[in-house]
């Protein structure tokens, strides 16, 4: 599935929810159920600091694709990260770098994108793209 298709799938899924409560319940469920990062990767150099919560992000390459794993101490954030990972993980550096992540806005979680409230969400997207750039330069 392409990044666009994966985004469309999430948007369709969220269209089933009637209100914010259901969306949050879903994010909480995602946040709780996904073991996203190995403990050994929860190191200070993998931390993305926001004013609100902490996010750990790790990236590895696998056959030219980048696999992301992450965690956060806040569950809603963790739920959103798992969406980001669902969309961006196992893609090539080029795909990740060119990705336009419009789905967060479309599923009605735009407020999570505001720079201060993003809890590092924007920083996280930036960091994912940064990893992609680093792997791309290494490959060339």
């Amino acid at each position, binding site marked *: 599935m392409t990044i666009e298709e994966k985004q469309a799938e999430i948007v369709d899924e969220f269209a089933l929810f009637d209100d914010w*409560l259901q969306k949050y319940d879903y994010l909480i469920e995602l946040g709780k159920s996904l073991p996203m990062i190995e403990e050994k990767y929860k190191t200070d150099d993998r931390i993305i600091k926001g004013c*609100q919560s902490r996010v750990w992000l790790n990236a590895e390459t696998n056959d030219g694709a980048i696999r992301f794993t992450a965690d956060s101490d*806040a*569950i809603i954030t963790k739920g959103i990260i798992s969406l980001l990972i669902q969309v961006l993980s196992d893609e090539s550096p080029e795909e990740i770098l060119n990705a336009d992540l419009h789905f967060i806005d479309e599923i009605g979680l735009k407020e999570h994108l505001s720079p201060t409230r993003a809890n590092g969400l924007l920083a996280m997207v930036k960091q994912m793209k940064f990893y992609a750039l680093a792997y791309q330069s290494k490959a060339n």
Partner: protein
Amino acid sequence: MSTETLDMEKIREDFPILSEEVHGQPLVYFDNAATSQKPTPVIEAITRYYTQINSNIHRGVHTLSQKATDAFEETREKVRKHINAEHAHEIIFTKGTTDGINLVASSFGQHFIGEGEEVIITNMEHHSNIVPWQLICAQRGARLKIVPISDKGELDLETFRKMLNKNTALVAVNHISNSLGTINPVKEITEAAHEVGAAVLIDGAQSAPHMPIDVQDIGADFYTFSAHKMCGPTGLGVLYGREEWLEKMPPYQGGGEMIKEVFLDHSTWADLPHKFEAGTPNISEVVAFGTALDYLNEIGWEAIEAQERDLLEYGTARLSEIEGLKIYGEADQKASVISFLIEGIHPYDVGMVLDKLGIAVRTGHHCTQPIMDRFEIPGTVRASFAFYNTREEIDRLVEGLKRVKTMFA
């Protein structure tokens, strides 16, 4: 014991934003420690300034400039009265509390903090009352010492007294902690500091909105606060400085009204307070801040304190009913701030859900990271009350927190 002294319905009507809806719910605004809401007279004062007397001050000979200057200086006098300063020229208008602290750190610091000397701050300071001192201490080769706090969130005064010595140049302490609500015994602190010849700066950002201040009684050398936390406009603050210090301190910034004479090789400085007010000040804000002070005085500080005390007591009791909720900051003397965590739920998650219910609280470290490190927590949820808040709103918060608990269970 509900307070009958305030006509709450009328007061709430004075604040148009309180009838706004957020996510389809009536707004409950509990982020007053960050900034207060503005009553209609203050909002109108800003419009009136721009529609009737907008003009630059102190320099013009024309009528508008005179009117604007008068209105500006009237506020200075109102502030003087509000904090019982001896002279109006001890009142410096700044951009805010942070600006006031930086002014003192930079200007006082350059002249009166020497190598090997010491600056004392506390473990409960806002970043704005930490970083400027770190900067000036590094520049001057001085040492920064930190007064520890107890588990209840009170200053360890015994240790503080032991820290004081003839090398202490300055003590900087907040009057009320924004994260814990602790009201510090500033008069006692000032007296002890003066015994060793140290000056004292008090960060009054969280106290000026809640009580009348008497800088002479406290014995403060510097006292600084922000207009926007006390029903006034943003971008404006006050620095009170004792005349004898302000006279001896060099200017902080150059240009505009702070000048007496300028030659190409040197300049001389204007008299107080203008020496510290470079450039065109926030005239409309200053004028409207005068209206804010009038508004607060009219409501009455006793009534304000009574209402806020009631909200603190009621809020503490109601929040304590929630299982797994722990309040941080249990000082005997406390302002209307309740900082808390619910076991197993991150403050950000709590804040996000409350927001959807129309309830505005602050979450995170509240720019007091050292406090969070002290208690080994990532941050807290903070509900801070103003006199225009009600018990019913606290009930909504309690209902909201119960919902949060169900969602994250």
